[in-house]
């Protein structure tokens, strides 16, 4: 079955094969949203579970995310007749003073694979840019990333700025020097330690069920 071929190609980390199989499924008039859900999203969820449990590492996670992204690029124009339907919009960026982005990039790819629209602002992003982008894109979640300790004050300041200016934008944080205690100290709405748990966090914050359309179990919620 063509959806199984897509799923298997993601697990094989084969971006070209994923793109080819997605096109083949489209050509065979498979349901577009089923291609997204059963072919791509569930495969990425599987991979994500393996990453969370420590069975696979960053190279495999990145390769899988890139493979899914290749499939999404083929699928996107066909989603909802060309008008993209998503689970919600998330604005991402690495905070001002920091140029590191590998973690943020992976989060973006995994969120896209999970059906979110991602606005990636890149690196060295200031508070006003985060807020403006979230406002103009009707994003309910802003994700802040940093790698180096010296930019933690910048992250705190950005969280504070967004919270002051908006009542309904939620701010989540992630990055090597961070932990839940830091998140709590800056009154951010959530902290995730890796890309996979970030998807769970965003789903929880936006009250969205997982890819299998089951409500998240208590132990799956952060």
């Amino acid at each position, binding site marked *: 079955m063509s959806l199984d071929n897509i799923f298997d190609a993601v697990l094989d980390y084969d971006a070209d094969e994923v793109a080819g199989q997605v096109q083949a499924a489209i050509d065979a008039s498979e349901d577009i949203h089923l291609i997204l859900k059963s072919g791509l999203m569930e495969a990425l969820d599987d991979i994500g579970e393996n990453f969370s449990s420590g069975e696979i590492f960053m190279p495999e996670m990145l390769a899988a995310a890139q493979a899914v992204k290749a499939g999404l690029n083929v699928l996107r124009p066909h989603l909802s007749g060309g008008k993209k339907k998503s689970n919600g919009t998330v604005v991402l960026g690495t905070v001002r003073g920091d140029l590191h982005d590998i973690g943020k990039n992976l989060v973006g790819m995994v969120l896209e694979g999970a059906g979110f629209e991602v606005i990636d602002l890149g690196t*060295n992003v200031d508070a006003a840019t985060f807020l403006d982008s979230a406002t103009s894109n009707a994003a309910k979640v802003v994700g802040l990333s940093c790698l180096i300790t010296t930019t933690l004050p910048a992250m705190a300041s950005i969280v504070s700025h967004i919270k002051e200016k908006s009542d309904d934008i939620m701010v989540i944080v992630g990055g090597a020097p961070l932990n839940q205690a830091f998140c709590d100290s800056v009154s951010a709405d959530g902290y995730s330690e890796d890309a996979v748990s970030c998807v769970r966090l965003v789903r929880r914050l936006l009250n969205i069920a997982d890819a299998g359309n089951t409500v998240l179990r208590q132990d799956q919620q952060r």
Partner: protein
Amino acid sequence: MPESSATLTSRERVLRAVHHREADRVPIDLGGTEVSTMMVGPYKRLAQHFGIDVNPVVMPDIMQQCVIVDDRIGDLMGADAKAIFQLPKKWRRAEAYDGTLVSLPDRFRPELQPDGATILFDGDGEAELCMPSGGYFFDIVQHPLKEMENIHDLDSAKEIIDNFDRPYWADLPWEELAKYAKNLRESTDKTIIGCFTGHIFQASQYLRGWSEFLVDLVTNKKFAEALMDRLAEAQIKAFDHYASTVGKYCDIIEVADDLGMQDRPWVSPKTYRQLIKPYHARLYDHIKRTSGLPLLMHCDGSIYSLIPDLIEIGVDILNPVQYSAGGMDLERLKREFGNDLCFWGGGIDTQEALPFWKPEEIRDQIKRNIDILAPGGGFVFGTVHNVVEGVPVENVLATFETALECGVY
């Protein structure tokens, strides 16, 4: 009971620790490597605290904006080691990230941009390094092998590959750097550490792109191996030159390659053993046989599952012992690897403790860490990575005062 150590020099103290013997006290490192020194700001404030004029501040490490620690400061902190950085032929005065006037390599000429970023451009006008506005470090922003598809294309990148870790602005010939090292050796009793660096894995990430190289390890293994093979050969050839010059005056050779993330290694142990370890093994074996010196490896992050492999390929000293990373429990590290490795670092966490805790909290943590790592030697105290901007002076003082007080055997 420690051996009689009434008149130990710094060099003797460190080498006893490296060879798993207790000295008079735990040796201390501040300024002995490029990853155990200080950024300009906290260094300047420390010097001001002591009323010591350290002008001009000497900053050979432009990427991390880190200094050569003045001996007067080092002695007050109990420092037992001195780094041989890659140095320039000529120095110039310019401002560091915080406006402090420093001496830095003359050929390092970044340009201030309208948005406040400072960028070093290459000969083609492309940004090579960038310190963003409000930032404290220069980061590599150009990945020259990013678009490469074929192994044969690597031939065109020979110069870039051969010179990784040897940037053009650090252009003092090693024959001259050897004179500096000789003079240092003869004028001080400190342990002299040759910072050769010798990146292979990180070099591949920088040259290819962080994500790109990691994905290569899954989908384009032959390319990844070809790149690492060329890097290993280049580092081996460079080390032959280093060993015959600078290395003659060193007590320890330092290499660096960050294999860890915060919670796990970058790659699985299987991937490390199959794809990366052979190149580390080749280089480190060559370094050990050629120099006859102990090998210190700087390896950030969560690397517990890779440590047996590092021991196997000749690492004698492990730095920085990032105990805030996953699985890097100090008691377990000492228990399982303490007979095979000297732990260099591990004194106080630099991600949270050193910058943000109170001095008394820092003291308590350091006492605990010393109690775990010091018995039987095999421990050189240091901060886990450089003392970066934002660390209060009182925290630096608490750190090294406690190390001196509580490190007595």
